[in-house]
């Protein structure tokens, strides 16, 4: 179980580093093995920063990040179990080397003892696991492969470790519609084999396609989270509703989001101190700071 408890990130800002910007503000949620949690938010909502903090690429300013109860300490041992795949496949590969050098990096760090023959078999198995033909993709330069192939190779790279959690940060936004689905179906398959996935995206339709749980972020804060069916079946926060309404659906004209008159957070009697209020089992909502409410949370 990967748990975030009131995780916060502040950056120094301004020309002389005087002021500070809070990119992520007391975010809490959990991701279990065999489950895909989609982290949805527009640009600037802090979703990528959360991804980088989980992967230890960016320091956590406050709050705690634990894996199976232990505090997360980024390093070789942590990366054996938690790995990441990023947005731009062509930026994930060092253009000067062949694409399968990403496997060599893993071998050097985690499997020094394994013989060449044995290692080649493992690589081939991982490549087949991600439904790629080793003959077509190994020994090529990144620019000779398609975006979809490159992303799947990155997932194969992670499978060479005893992977428990995968952070997928916008991994399909640079892909064409047809190859995007193959990558998503691949993630679904891995999820069924017990892998936990934190799927970060700005695209609602992708988020809902696979996710058991959804976390909706705005300006660094969780506005609504819980079971995907409940969050998008019955959105309670005005932001979630406008986001849902703004998604372009095939052949359906945009409908304006029905405004909220009462805020579910306060209506349920939640005091301003709590983070989110559980309006129904597995469905949490934050204070919507409606002007008429008067009891806004700091």
């Amino acid at each position, binding site marked *: 179980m990967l748990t975030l408890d009131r995780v916060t990130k502040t950056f120094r800002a301004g020309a002389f580093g005087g002021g500070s910007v809070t990119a992520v503000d007391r975010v809490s949620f959990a991701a279990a093995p065999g489950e895909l949690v989609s982290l949805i938010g527009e640009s600037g909502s802090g979703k990528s920063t959360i991804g980088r903090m989980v992967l230890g690429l960016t320091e956590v300013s406050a709050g705690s990040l634990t894996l199976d109860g232990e505090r997360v300490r980024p390093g070789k041992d942590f990366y054996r179990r938690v790995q990441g795949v990023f947005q731009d496949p062509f930026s994930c590969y060092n253009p000067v080397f062949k694409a399968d050098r990403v496997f060599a990096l893993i071998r050097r760090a985690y499997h020094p003892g394994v013989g060449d023959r044995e290692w080649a078999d493992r690589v081939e198995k991982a490549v087949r696991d991600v439904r790629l033909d080793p003959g077509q993709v190994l020994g090529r330069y990144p620019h000779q492969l398609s975006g979809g192939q490159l992303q799947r190779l990155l997932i194969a790279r992670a499978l060479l470790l005893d992977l428990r959690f995968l952070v997928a940060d916008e991994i399909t936004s640079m892909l064409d519609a047809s190859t995007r689905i193959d990558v998503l179906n691949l993630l679904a398959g891995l999820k069924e084999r017990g892998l936990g996935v934190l799927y970060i995206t700005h695209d609602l339709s992708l988020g809902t*396609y696979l996710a058991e749980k959804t976390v909706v972020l705005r300006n660094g804060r969780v506005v609504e989270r819980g079971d995907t069916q409940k969050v998008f079946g019955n959105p309670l926060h005005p932001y979630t509703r406008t*986001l849902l309404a703004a998604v372009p659906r095939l052949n359906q004209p945009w409908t304006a989001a029905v405004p909220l008159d009462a805020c579910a957070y306060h209506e349920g009697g939640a005091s301003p101190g709590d983070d989110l209020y559980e309006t129904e089992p597995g469905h949490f909502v934050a204070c919507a700071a409606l002007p008429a409410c008067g009891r806004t949370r700091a």
Partner: protein
Amino acid sequence: MTLTVNDLRVHYRTLRGEVRALDGVGFDLADGEILGLAGESGCGKTTLGKALIRLDGRMRHAGGTVTLDGEELPLSDDRAMNAYRFHKISLVPQYSMSALNPTRRIGRMVRELLASRGVSVDTDELHRRLALVGLEPGVLDRYPIELSGGMKQRAVMVISTLLDPSVLIADEVTSALDVSNQQAVVGALTGLRDKGLVTSMIFVTHDIGLTSHIADSIMVMYAGKLAEKAPTKILTTAPRHPYTKMLIGSLPQVGARYADKPLSGIAGSPPSLLDPPAGCRFRDRCPLADRQCAEEPPVVEIAPRHTVACWKAA
């Protein structure tokens, strides 16, 4: 008829030979029509958009003609094309965020640009158009660095349409935006057409879902050729080309779930356009392909304004 494109061929010169990015594309754009130009990366949609405005260094106009309001556009003659650019045909580029000169106030840049094209600046009209896309006049006194990405894009949209061009090409203007901004930009674009500031428009994108909200008709391209062109409603609900069907089928809609019915992508990848295969270029990825597809399928109008390039579609 605003724009007629007839068997247009544009190739890229590279070290390993000529990439036939556009290999004979034909369509026409009626007055007031917004055409969505969709397709996967490498299908030639951006090349088409670029070719109509300005061929850059490596592009070569290999054949075909483009007529705008009855006059044939001299695509390969950069100097002669100047007369048409901005006045008759204009562009909102993919790189709108960095299209404004960083060291010039926006108002001054617009004045200098218009003066260089021999046009006088009508400040009130400029303010009115800025308001149309939600920008206050104060924007003109600021430097591009002081505006947000979305504001810069809308400013470029106003600048590009100042001379009421017959055709506006919007090249992937929504791909870098969030969902809420996308809706605002689409609204602004349709507003330009509805108020007659632009006669007709080509909206280049890879997002068919969004295109269905702005385009009157959609043209799907594959490997440098037209696959299918039809009014939006028909193309999205009753496509006839197998590629269009699979493309629409692989778009996850909100609420679609893997657990209920997993969607399927399209196996394989588009052919290299260095030496494209003979016959139908979708042949080796198409489930309906047979011997007949070894021959190039003609573009057939199977219904009013609905053309398809596939033997199996008729």
